[in-house]
């Protein structure tokens, strides 16, 4: 302990504090601050880029899902329309048939009635 105290040099201590504190302030202004800021900016940039990529991916997915939905709707609508058309067609045919039948029946009946009259 005594040797330690004897070895202690106040001058060296004085210069050490002066150099070290000076170095802290000098480096803070010219090195640490710009370095840490740049690294921070870069990390922020990377984080933002990743986040926006993820957002874009999600949006893409949404868009695809939307497309699918619209396509499905359109398909369903088309199917409905086709079905309706078919129905309409069948109805029309059936109606026409029925009308034709009744018309034919009427003509036949008229013809028969005329024949009956002529016999006399």
């Amino acid at each position: 302990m005594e040797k330690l105290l004897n070895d202690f040099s106040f001058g060296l201590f004085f210069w050490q504090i002066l150099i070290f504190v000076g170095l802290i302030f000098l480096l803070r202004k010219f090195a640490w601050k710009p370095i840490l800021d740049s690294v921070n900016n870069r990390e922020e940039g990377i984080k933002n880029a990743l986040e926006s990529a993820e957002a874009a991916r999600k949006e893409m997915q949404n868009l695809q899902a939307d497309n699918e939905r619209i396509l499905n709707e359109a398909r369903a609508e088309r199917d409905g329309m086709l079905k309706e058309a078919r129905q309409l067609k069948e109805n029309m045919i059936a109606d026409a048939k029925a009308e034709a039948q009744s018309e034919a029946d009427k003509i036949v009946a008229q013809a028969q009635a005329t024949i009956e009259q002529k016999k006399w």
Partner: protein
Amino acid sequence: MQKISVVRIFMTLALILNSLNLAAKDTENLEKEGKDGLKAEIKEFIDHHLQDSHDFTLFSDKKTGKHYGFPLPVLLWDGGLKVFSSSKFHHGETVAEVDGNYYKLYHSKIYKTDAQGTIDYDENHHPKNTKLLDFSITKNVVSMLLIGLLMFFMFRSLAKSYKKNNGIPTGVGRFLEPLVLFVRDEIAKPNIGHNYKKYMSFLLTIFFFVWLLNLLGMTPLGVNVTGNIAVTFGLALLTFLITNFTANKNYWGHIFWMPGVPTFMKVVLAPIELLGVFIKPFSLMIRLYANMTAGHVVIMSIVGMMFLFKSWIGSPLSFGLAFVLSILEFYDNSRNCRIRSNSNRCRIRYR
């Protein structure tokens, strides 16, 4: 690791140069006598190496009494500032005369003497002469300034390279950036938490300062800055001041009224924790000082052994041993600064 082996070879070369004349003398004299002399000389060399010095001596030739290196400025306070070159001391061999006052170097300390340079001793063999307030630019101060400059240019270039290359470092910055990030992510963030930004300048500076000075200590330049108690005391004092003056109520709460333990234990813990406030930086101070001193003594002793066992088996053996130990010390150095910065900051983890 490759770098260190080169460093070791240089250090060995420096020692060989230093002791060339010893080897020559040794063969002429009696073997026993020469060995004892050599042992004493190695011990003196190590002692001298551990201490700060007023000149930058790279190696000395004992035969011709020549020292190779350069003198450094001496700044003394003796009723006014006295500035002169350390070459006036002639490595402690002569008395320096400045403005009618006489000064002499004794064990790297400057004492005021008479014209003959007499030093009076007390019963414990300590000099009784007046010890002066010595603000000299010593070898350690020069090393710190060099490392400071090196750090400034290194990290300035890293900071600049971000702007030039769109946020990505270039050149040596690619090596430095992971180190900076290591301090931030492995030391600051886990130990301090979200409030770490305030301490980054201090942490980064102390980390690279200690690390580079430790590495410089492994070169054959023979500087031993972090193994000097005044330097580690300065670092510990700054750490102590910063932790306690920036501490918030959480920190003091953990010292005077530890949460989560029974009231009785709170009363017992308070004085222990209060002592810990002083003991922690103090132990860090002693730890770095002792580690560096011990490391330097061991490595230099083993390198010195090469010159004692001048046989074909002894020298390669101690060379190998010294080499392995240097690697170990290199690893230890890096670990030291990490632990050092770590424990420094552990104190603030409560915020």
